């Protein structure tokens, strides 16, 4: 994994990082309000981890940032874009925002390199040669240059997720969104994906990460946000929130996550 840990700089040399500003965001499905007024700021180049029990709204919040979900109320600013402006050029904004999914969502009919190059040629109008170069650079960056001609079904889960990261990076994003990127992986491949993400953080990418990997959050995140029931319950410096949370709900959640075998007899 040395090639992963030691890889450097983005496809255009340096990362231009964008910030995110979310204000009083609300989102409902019918009568079910899943986001009840979320405000959250991510400084350019910062890494923020969203943690919380399933159903707490953290994935929905992440998906609102690149408008895979349409918020009902509130504002989101991403770099120079106001995502919640009805007249925003969604496609132009999304080019700046890389998204990594829990289920990878690689294109099964294209090999790893084409997965990385297809949007470059079709959206950024790069030449195939230039797109291939950028794709190879990013595949090498995630340690998979030697598997560039493999199709997704010929790759392990961890390899597929790293290709998915390379695919997002190939668009030179200014912000990366990760939606539980390691939740669908075999335990032994989780480390490779996390080390790619750690590296990206070091290079100065702005990252918003929904995760259950507390070790990763503590080590890599600048800040951790704990969500429950559609609200931000607690947020702060990663080490502080994870090691000495102040809110009872945060304590309860972390106790369950960090010690899954613990059984609360009084419940």
């Amino acid at each position, binding site marked *: 994994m040395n090639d992963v840990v030691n890889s450097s700089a983005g496809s255009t040399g340096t990362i231009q990082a964008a910030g995110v500003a979310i204000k009083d965001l609300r989102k409902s499905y019918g009568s079910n309000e899943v986001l009840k007024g979320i405000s959250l700021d991510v400084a350019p180049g910062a890494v923020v981890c969203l943690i919380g029990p399933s159903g707490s709204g953290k994935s929905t919040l992440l998906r609102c940032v690149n408008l895979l979900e349409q918020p009902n109320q509130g504002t989101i600013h991403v770099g120079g874009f106001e995502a919640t402006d009805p007249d925003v050029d969604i496609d132009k904004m999304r080019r700046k925002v890389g*998204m990594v999914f829990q289920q990878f969502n690689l294109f*099964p*009919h294209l090999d790893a390199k084409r997965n990385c190059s297809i949007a470059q040629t079709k959206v950024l109008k790069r030449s195939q040669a230039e797109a291939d170069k950028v794709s190879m650079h990013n595949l090498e960056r995630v340690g998979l240059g030697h598997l560039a001609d493999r199709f997704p079904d010929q790759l392990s889960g961890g390899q597929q997720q790293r290709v998915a990261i390379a695919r997002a990076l190939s668009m030179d994003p200014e912000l990366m969104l990760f939606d539980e990127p390691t939740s669908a992986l075999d335990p032994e491949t989780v480390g490779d994906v996390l080390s790619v993400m750690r590296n990206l953080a070091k290079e100065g990418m702005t990252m918003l990460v929904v995760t259950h990997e507390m070790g990763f959050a503590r080590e890599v995140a600048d800040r951790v946000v704990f969500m429950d029931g559609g609200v931000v319950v607690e947020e702060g410096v990663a080490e502080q929130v994870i090691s000495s949370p102040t809110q009872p709900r945060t304590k309860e959640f972390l106790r369950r996550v960090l010690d899954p075998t613990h059984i609360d007899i009084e419940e």
Partner: protein
Amino acid sequence: MAMTARQRARVSLYVQAGIFVVAIAALILATDWETIGNSVFNFGKIGPMFPGIFVTGLVNTLIYTFLGFIVGLSGGLLLALMKLSSFPLYRWIASGYIEFFRGIPALLVFIAFGYGVPLAFGVSWNITVIVMVSLGMVASAYIAETLRAGLQAVPKGQLEAARSLGMPQWRAMITIVIPQAFKIVLPPLTNEVILLTKDSSLIYVLGLTASQYELTKFGRDGISSLGAGLTPLLVAGAFYLVITIPLSFLARKFESRTARNNR
């Protein structure tokens, strides 16, 4: 004497085989072989059908089917996308079209476009255009439903991933979703082609000149001119199998390939 389950199954199998053999024997005994031989298997007199049935009949059937399929595929894709549209008017139009053309006999469509439309609009279409339009419009309705199912079978995450990379909806559909949907619908689509091949025979209701004959019309023509009874139709039928059996074989091959991997 009580039988075990396995013995009972075996006896049941023997009984079924016995019924089958008796039925076949009865059919053979009941058949008037002399008449059949003269009117259906009268291969001595069909010489004049060749090579016309090849160079005209088979070729025209293939051309008509191909043209109908091209129109059907384009129309079907358009209808499928309309049916999946978020714009209700499109969905209603597509549903109405599909229900109508699936619900009426294809024969009526041929008559409508062969006689009705030229009369109503004072145009005269040549046979190729009439077949292309009639067959294509019927095929569109069937193919639309097949493609809609295929498009919906592509996981939602594929569209999300494509849109997240900044692709507009249409680009994501063309580059990512539709190619995957086509792989899924290849086997059922092959079946549509088989149905289309046979439906192309309906053109017989229109007045054809000899050079426009397709297989069925060729066979019917042979009935009246060769004095070999129904034998020419049997020959025409065999030629349909020459087209459809390889298609079925291809469909099965696609099916086993998509079952092996989804690439």
